[in-house]
């Protein structure tokens, strides 16, 4: 393999016109102009890419949040039996009050009239158990039952005045029952002498402000017993 050209031919080729050594001004300016435009286009692409990425991230976060909300707020799937059970009004059992410590009562929160007198009456009656039992019975009066039979949703939506009235009815009946218990014990002579006057006064205080005929009769009897020695 030989590429040695004849000297004369090589000399002729060596004298060939040379190539340009630099771009002319028009081509050079065209290159710089295109460089400027390409840079701005690249900047725009980067900006659009950034914005698209940010928008996609926001969208993903929004979808995730929406999904969590839907999942958390969707009720559990219910069958026909469950649906039927939900349509039955909720009947709450009569609230069993906690054992009341001496000198305090849960009814204070409603009526504000049971306190020391209740404990005094119970002690005079010999045991707290009958008093508690009677009070439970008193709370299970038609008014209280009416309150308990109200469906839960209706009870939650009831006006505060209605709830206060129902509580007042229950308290009123309970006070009459308690006074009746004291009077019964007095008639049967079961009140200890040392506790008798205090129990009668406590029972009398329970009837203050009640204008029912039964309460008036009990009040009159208690007044008579308190006046007599």
């Amino acid at each position, binding site marked *: 393999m030989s590429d040695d050209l004849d000297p004369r031919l090589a000399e002729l080729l060596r004298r060939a016109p040379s*190539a340009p050594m630099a771009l002319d001004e028009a081509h050079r300016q065209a290159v710089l102009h295109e460089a400027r435009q390409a840079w701005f286009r690249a900047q725009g692409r980067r900006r659009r890419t950034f914005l698209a990425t940010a928008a996609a991230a926001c969208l993903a976060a929004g979808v995730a949040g929406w999904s969590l909300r839907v999942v958390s707020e969707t009720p559990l799937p219910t069958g026909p039996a469950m649906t039927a059970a939900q349509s039955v009004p909720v009947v709450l059992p009569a609230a069993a009050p906690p054992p009341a410590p001496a000198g305090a009562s849960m009814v204070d929160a409603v009526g504000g009239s049971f306190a020391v007198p209740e404990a005094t009456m119970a002690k005079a009656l010999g045991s707290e158990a009958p008093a508690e039992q009677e009070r439970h019975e008193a709370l299970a009066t038609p008014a209280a039952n009416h309150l308990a039979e109200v469906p839960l949703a209706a009870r939650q939506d009831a006006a505060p005045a209605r709830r206060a009235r129902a509580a007042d009815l229950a308290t009123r009946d309970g006070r009459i029952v308690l006074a009746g218990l004291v009077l019964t014990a007095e008639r049967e002579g079961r009140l200890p002498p040392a506790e008798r006057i205090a129990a009668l006064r406590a029972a009398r205080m329970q009837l203050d402000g009640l204008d029912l005929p039964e309460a008036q009769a009990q009040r009159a009897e208690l007044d008579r017993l308190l006046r007599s020695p």
Partner: protein
Amino acid sequence: MQLLGRYLRQGDEAAVATLVDRHQADLLRTAHAITGEAQAAQDAVQEAFVRLCRDAATLVGAAGTRSSVGGWLCTVARNCALDAVRRKRHAPLPEQVRQPTPPQGTPADEAGLLWAAVARLPELERAAIVLRYRDGLAYDAIAERLGKTSNHVGVILNQAVTRLRSDARLAGISP
């Protein structure tokens, strides 16, 4: 590659101008050897620099695998020049060849006949002949500009010289 990164980050045109100044001579020589026309060579080199600006991000991103801007530019300029030649199938070598100015002491028809024979060579052979005998480049340099191996350049040159000898003999050019 640092200049390209500066252009990419800051839009620095001075970096591009520096790249043009640094590589334009080699690129023009190669493109001119292939096309044989100064204007076509200028267009090919301009296109190479324009593509460099457009693909700067890709080049800088792939800097670890390909760090030679000059090699990339040479490849693009060569391909642009070859495309131009293929678009103008009958493009002759240097424009002066069409109406060659005979060197002093040389009959005008001899130079014209020789350059006409060079113009008829295939693109790669013509480019190899010009780069070898006009610019005096070594095989390695020619191989780098044409994207071939040195051995391949030797084969190309041998084929080109054989054709030229034959044409010169037929044309009656005295050796």
